[in-house]
């Protein structure tokens, strides 16, 4: 803007100069550059903070989903054999390399780590590594016979296929595991056995439950937000406090309160039994299942729906609805054709907030979900904290992130992100 103005003036009256003799255009550009640098310096701390505490660690974590050098770093001889013999069946040289590596692994106590890495691909093979390493010192050539003597399991073709694939530090195996695929004996990928399929079911469950929770929040939150927007100021602020008070209470307190209310011997069941509505033997199971997860998460996420809706509804002039009524619309038509379309930015913002929070929710489903109410985030936490299969955890997290970004894009295409109003 300033540039164009300067150009226009230059065009009209030749080179304009500042009082100290510099061309005006140059002085302006300099002043603007200085302002830009100052603005950048102001956000620099935030930028550095985000980079250091968010982008780098998350990037590093996600890179683990494709990078895993446990095998190649600890089994160098076998890794070399694999790269020199791209298609060969395991021969005496391969078994000799295996024994060399296992000896070194025993020395450094890494056989457990290597076994665990292969066990990810072929369940039940971890013990091959640990038990063979325990006896590796006594092995004599020919190594093939000697190793097979320790355990016949070393013949398995899927084991060798898994080792060959694990010898490459860059791998897509963890993404395949994250969609319930496994290595077959011929080194191909196929669907995992039914008893080992988890993740696809869990992803589906996570999305379905999140949609249900978002829907419930919308149904429950819409009237509340409307009430907040139309009540006189004093009453509205009282109501707003009631909405915000639970929002400010600790998440754990709210979740455990629900446990007190919903459990088999809890307040609700006791009241129903006491009133004679339920028999003592058929108390409702509202906790440690999906019902518990849905109830507790809907309550916890409700303010994230109410607040954006409220901020949008507050700005809708009541005269539109009045105009519609005076032109003969029924109250339902007024609501449907006049009021709701104006609240869409709030509905969009609330729904996307609640949905994204629900998809990644962890602590509430862990506490009240039992076996059927846990979500994909609980499985990610299991692999982060218990099984320590960080690569698989990273692959699952990356898929979750990608799914959320896709939804965000879809939302943008349908509703338009610039329509969203967050409050």
């Amino acid at each position, binding site marked *: 803007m300033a540039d164009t103005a300067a150009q226009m003036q230059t065009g009209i009256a030749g080179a304009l100069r500042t009082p100290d003799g510099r061309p005006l255009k140059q002085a302006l550009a300099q002043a603007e550059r200085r302002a830009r640098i100052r603005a950048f310096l102001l956000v620099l701390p935030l930028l550095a903070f985000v980079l250091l505490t968010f982008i780098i660690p998350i990037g590093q974590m996600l890179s683990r989903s494709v990078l895993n050098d446990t095998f190649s770093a600890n089994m160098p001889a076998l890794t070399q054999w694999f790269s020199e013999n791209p298609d060969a069946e395991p021969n005496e040289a391969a078994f000799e390399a295996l024994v060399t590596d296992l000896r070194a692994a025993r020395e450094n*106590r890494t056989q*457990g780590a290597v076994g665990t890495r292969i066990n990810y691909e072929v369940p039940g093979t971890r013990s091959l590594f640990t038990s063979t390493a325990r006896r590796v010192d006594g092995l004599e050539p020919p190594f093939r016979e000697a190793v097979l003597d320790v355990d016949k399991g070393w013949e398995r073709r899927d084991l060798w296929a898994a080792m060959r694939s694990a010898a490459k530090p860059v791998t897509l195996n963890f993404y395949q595991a994250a969609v319930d695929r496994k290595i077959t004996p011929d080194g191909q990928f196929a669907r995992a056995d039914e008893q*080992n399929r988890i993740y696809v079911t869990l992803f589906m469950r996570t999305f379905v439950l999140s949609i249900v929770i978002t829907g419930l929040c919308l149904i429950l939150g819409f009237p509340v937000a409307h009430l907040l927007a139309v009540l006189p100021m004093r009453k509205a602020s009282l109501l707003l406090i009631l909405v915000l008070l639970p929002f400010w209470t600790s998440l754990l307190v709210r979740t455990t309160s629900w446990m007190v209310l919903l*459990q088999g011997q809890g307040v609700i069941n006791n009241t129903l039994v006491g009133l004679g509505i339920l028999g003592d033997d058929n108390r409702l199971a509202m906790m440690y299942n999906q019902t518990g997860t849905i109830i507790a998460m809907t309550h916890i996420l409700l303010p994230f729906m109410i607040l954006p809706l409220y901020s949008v509804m507050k700005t809708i002039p009541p005269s539109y609805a009045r105009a519609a009524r005076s032109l003969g619309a029924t109250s339902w038509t007024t609501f449907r054709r006049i009021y709701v379309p104006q609240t869409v930015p709030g509905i969009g913002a609330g729904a996307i907030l609640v949905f994204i929070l629900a998809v990644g929710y962890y602590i509430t489903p862990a506490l009240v979900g039992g076996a*059927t109410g846990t979500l994909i985030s609980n499985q990610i936490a299991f692999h982060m904290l*218990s099984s*320590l299969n960080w690569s698989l955890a990273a692959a699952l997290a990356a898929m979750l992130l990608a799914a959320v970004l896709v939804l965000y894009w879809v939302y943008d295409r349908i509703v338009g992100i610039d329509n969203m109003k967050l409050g």
Partner: protein
Amino acid sequence: MKKTLILTTALTGLAFAASAQEVTVMSWGGAYTKSQVEAYHKPFTAETGIKVNSVDADNPATPIKAQVEAGNITVDVADIELADAVRLCDEGLLEVIDHSALPPAPDGTPATEDFLPAGMVSDCAVPSIVWSTIVAYNTNNVQGTPTTLADFFDTTAFPGKRGARKDPTALLEMALVADGVPADQVYDTLGTDAGVDRAFAKLDTIKSDIVWWEAGAQPPQLLADGEVVMTTAYNGRIFNAQVTENQPFGIIWDGQILDFDLFVIPKGAPNKEEALKFISFATDTQRLADQAAWISYGPARKSSAPFVGLFNDGKTEMGPHMPTAPENLKTALANDFEFWADRKVELTERFNAWLLQ
């Protein structure tokens, strides 16, 4: 001004001294951590001046592994199960502890012969207690008196919810024993695919009735609340609820699964010297016997047995409450640490998938 300066300097010095002389011990929480604080931590601080920080986890083996892998170790001593000790030692996540440097028994028997041999299989760990996984019930809520593991799986004769630890260890063994597998064949059976299928099939029969617990303090709570009528539990927690809180709980000793708890030092622990000192102190004859006055777990040293007497209420005889009491041992099963060290990862995965189905 000068006074303040001196005071601050003195305080800083104190803080420095304190941070140089401390050891962080991670255990299982609740009544069990309390027994350790009373029997080990307090006397240790009194004798050496080294402060003991007590922290808890549902299973300390889990954070240990995560801490060492991430290179951010905050724990000096951890109390873990035998199979985990063997497994973590195999993976190079624990410091090696010289067993011969541990204090001998009062009669001079060297430590290596004084400890129960089954607990001394890992050179990264020193055993402290023998404990067991049992099934406990609330006499007020259960109909009749359950006496065997089969009763735990029989929801027709004993209706009501069941509690179980959200972990395949001990549970799979109990399922097989309840299904009629003799105790000495349990691990051979579990070593085959058919055996694992059989254990899960048995668990399927009560799956919809199970409330899962994770922390050892939960099962007494679930029983007391009436949330479950029977639950698997650590025997000491049930004992403490029975004796100190007068809860009407009973224990099914049939098919109890014995295990050790051991002290280990995570590789790269910040206060390794103090940690070693703590472990030698806590696992000497007298200290192990002292712990039995706070919870019904058996000491891992033979020489401690004569020193085990009354509970800290001054009237309860500990002997019959110990998992190692002869009448409780009749059908007991010792946890096969080698089996679980090798197969825990895959069986846990199968268990998780089973939970979701």
